[in-house]
């Protein structure tokens, strides 16, 4: 595994840097969208995979950040980085609020509270005068980064998205492997015991909520800047379902597994676009299959396979 990372990562980064220069090969805007969902799914997995909390309301963070960023860019005329930051702060705050309310319950009830709160957020954006409701908020200017770099140029924008996504993923990786991340896993495994060790479990959960929400918000803001549009699709509960789907498909017991799920789902939707509703059927079947026989997710099954196949090597590298 480690070997894969050591060779694969630089290769991946190099390929990603090259993409905007060969638009014939892969459409950069599509890749930007994929990166947004990669970040979203990995951020979501901070809660699902690492804290064992099922949130059914993550669209609220993704979408509200998109709207706030759009508002800051279009109506307040702020520069892009400030607008994105505003969106992230807003959704992180929202996340802390959701967390504070939702963690009073467990399991399916917790999921239901997040769903209910997310529906209230959806309603607020549907009614708010600046969102354009069903028409979506558009057109949103992409603005200039630090007032200098023109983001209307797709290549500039691409690197902004790449850096933000990379930074976000790096941060998620850091969080997961920090003592904080370990405590989250301890809570997931045995909450009362963690509490008896003197950890303020609630505070950890709320913090995890805020972090996950803030990073999901970053993904939403980026998507809004890329497409110059924020719409109800981003806050609709289907988006919350989508991100669960991506995460479980990719594998929720790893840091970057959800990224693979996000790539698979986005690619299916993009490349088989012409098939219309067949794509929905395909995604559904993949999903049923995944839950029935593939429960570790793509990355989980892969590393499991490698670990079974080469147990010795794996140990040496670890």
């Amino acid at each position: 595994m480690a070997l894969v990372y050591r060779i694969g990562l630089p290769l991946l980064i190099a390929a990603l840097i090259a993409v905007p220069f060969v638009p014939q090969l892969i459409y950069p805007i599509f890749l930007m969208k994929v990166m947004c969902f990669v970040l979203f799914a990995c951020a979501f997995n901070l809660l699902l995979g690492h804290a064992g909390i099922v949130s059914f309301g993550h669209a609220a963070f993704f979408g509200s950040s998109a709207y706030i960023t759009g508002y800051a860019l279009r109506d307040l005329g702020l520069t892009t980085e400030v607008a994105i930051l505003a969106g992230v702060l807003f959704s992180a705050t929202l996340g802390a609020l959701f967390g504070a309310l939702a963690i009073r319950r467990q399991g399916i009830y917790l999921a239901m509270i997040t769903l209910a709160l997310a529906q209230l957020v959806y309603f607020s954006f549907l009614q708010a005068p600046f969102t354009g409701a069903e028409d979506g908020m558009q057109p949103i200017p992409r603005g200039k980064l630090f007032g200098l770099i023109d983001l209307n140029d797709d290549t500039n924008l691409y690197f902004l998205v790449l850096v933000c996504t990379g930074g976000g993923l790096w941060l998620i990786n850091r969080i997961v492997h920090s003592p904080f991340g370990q405590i989250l896993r301890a809570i997931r495994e045995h909450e009362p015991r963690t509490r008896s060790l003197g950890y303020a479990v609630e505070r950890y959960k709320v913090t995890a909520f805020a972090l996950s929400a803030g990073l999901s918000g970053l993904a939403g803001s980026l998507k809004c800047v890329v497409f110059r549009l924020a719409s109800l699709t981003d806050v609709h509960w289907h988006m919350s379902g989508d991100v669960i789907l991506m995460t479980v498909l990719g594998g929720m017991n790893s840091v970057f597994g959800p990224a693979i799920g996000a790539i698979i789902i986005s690619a299916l939707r993009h490349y088989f676009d012409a098939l219309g509703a067949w794509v929905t059927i395909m995604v559904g079947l993949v999903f049923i299959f995944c839950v029935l026989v593939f429960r570790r997710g793509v990355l989980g099954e892969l590393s499991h396979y490698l670990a079974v196949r080469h147990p010795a090597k794996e140990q040496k590298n670890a």
Partner: protein
Amino acid sequence: MEIFGIPHQAFLGQIMLGLVNGAFYAVLSLGLAIIFGLLRVVNFAHGAFFMVGAFIAFLLGRNLGLGYWPAMIAAPMIVGFAGIIFERFAIRRIYGLDPLYGLLLTFGLVLVMEGGFRVAMGSSGHPFPTPQLLRGAWDIGFMMLPVYRGFVILIAVVVCAGTWILIEKTRMGAYLRAATERPDLTQSFGINVPLLLTLTYGVGVGLAGFAGVLAAPIQHVNPSMGSDLVIIVFAIVVIGGLGSVLGSALTGLGLGVIEGLTKVYYSEASTTVVFLVMALVLLLRPAGLFGREEA
């Protein structure tokens, strides 16, 4: 005459319509509650089975010339049978796992069913004629109530009461309740619990299919007719208390009325008010209005 500044005609009329919607909620949440109570599976596909019920009634009528009344019997049975097959081959494999997996599995099924009907039947709705017998409208003083909608309220109450009697007063129901509380013990008394689970799922989604047939003349038959409904019905079951059968049916009717009232004062919020109620109930009375706190 006015009630809080609203003409009483509009006020009572909206409550009446709320009751009609509440009737659908009641039948749907009833099935969902039974399934959760026994299988511990959050059946996300409930709305999709509702849609399939409506489509089967529509197709039976269009292709086989079957009338509304036979379809009302046949469609729920077909839907129930489909449910039984799905339980045998899929849901059965995930019993005992985290409830998350049940939710995910049925969510996948939703995608397949909705996508399938979209491919086969298109996204725009198909009109479904009101049965001859139930056309026209009653003048009930404050509004013209179409006969069919009155019929919906009536039959929903009958179905809910029937199911309640089935569960509370019959031997079958006793097995069911026993299996809900202590499946292992019930099994050891020689009752075939796995079969009971299968049948329960079949009956639960059959009820959803039945609601679909009821809704067809009002809503037009279209692939996404159950898609937003499912989370509302979810919310209702949670408000009523997961697993409480009578609770969810009553809550369904009650929330229909609350929705109707919301339409009088703040129409835009009518689809959201359910979630507001759910958030409040969960925070103040976690086990729901009729549920018991579980260990």
